[in-house]
């Protein structure tokens, strides 16, 4: 099980991300409108030394399109290391639906409310 906390109307989870150069603890916001796995800002991607994999097109909240560099890295997730795609986006790290696939997400939406992410059987 993965746990987090609700703060200022955001569900936040701490996550350990591994790159080729280093390993970082980050705090990410769960965003159910984000369909990829994880986004990280460019400076964190450089520090981790993530491997560049591809370019793809994404749609932003205002309906506009943008081109995104996608990297590869791994996260510690539910006690296991998972290899994932990581989108470069200059915002706070976001956890998207692809990372949550196969899991149940519960959140108590109030200040300091609990966030729990449990594997579905």
């Amino acid at each position, binding site marked *: 099980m993965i746990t987090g906390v609700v703060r200022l109307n955001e569900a936040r989870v701490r996550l350990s991300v591994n790159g080729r150069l280093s390993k970082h603890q980050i705090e990410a916001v769960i965003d159910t*409108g984000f*369909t990829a796995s994880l986004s990280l800002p460019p400076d964190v991607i450089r520090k981790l030394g993530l*491997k560049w*994999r591809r370019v*793809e*097109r*994404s*749609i932003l909240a205002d309906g506009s399109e943008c081109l995104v560099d*996608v990297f590869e890295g791994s996260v510690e997730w539910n006690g296991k290391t998972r290899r994932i795609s990581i*989108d470069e986006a200059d915002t706070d790290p976001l956890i998207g639906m692809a990372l949550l696939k196969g899991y149940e997400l519960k959140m108590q939406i109030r200040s300091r409310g609990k966030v729990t992410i449990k594997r579905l059987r």
Partner: protein
Amino acid sequence: MLKYQRHMVKKRRKLLSRYIVVDPNICHGKPTFVGTRVMVAQVLRQVARGMPRDKIVAEWRNTVSKQAIADAVKRMTLSPENGDKMAPTERRYSKEEFARRGDAIYESDVAPHLKSRDNGKFVAIDIDSGNYEVDADELGACDRLSARVPSAQIWLVRVGSRAVHRFGGRERRSA
């Protein structure tokens, strides 16, 4: 004497990961799977041909595990010259160039060959060579293409969608 020592150091067995080793006494120092004489390049070629992982494991009589194959795919790519060098890739064109060339290749060479069951799958296109791979998994499509074209400059497309992913926004389905 010094020269001799340096020579010795260079020739030592080196573990590249839990699963992969470079040993001058095995396969002329080409990367192999630990405890085997199976060259990483041989397995990567099978992955590139789209052979299922179970079948690859069986082919090498269970001496190469699925985890070892996954590790090899993650760490190594085939290089055109000798098929066993590490080939770190960097983006060599602007993102706009990727979109322009990638979309053009998709429209002319990929889309005509797609079936309705491919809807929602991912297409990884190398904008340099025009080679592409289709897979239900996005990393799967990229891995197969990179195994085939080591320095692939990949543009990823999701069949049936304008964009691969959404940050909160979505395409309007109706006017």
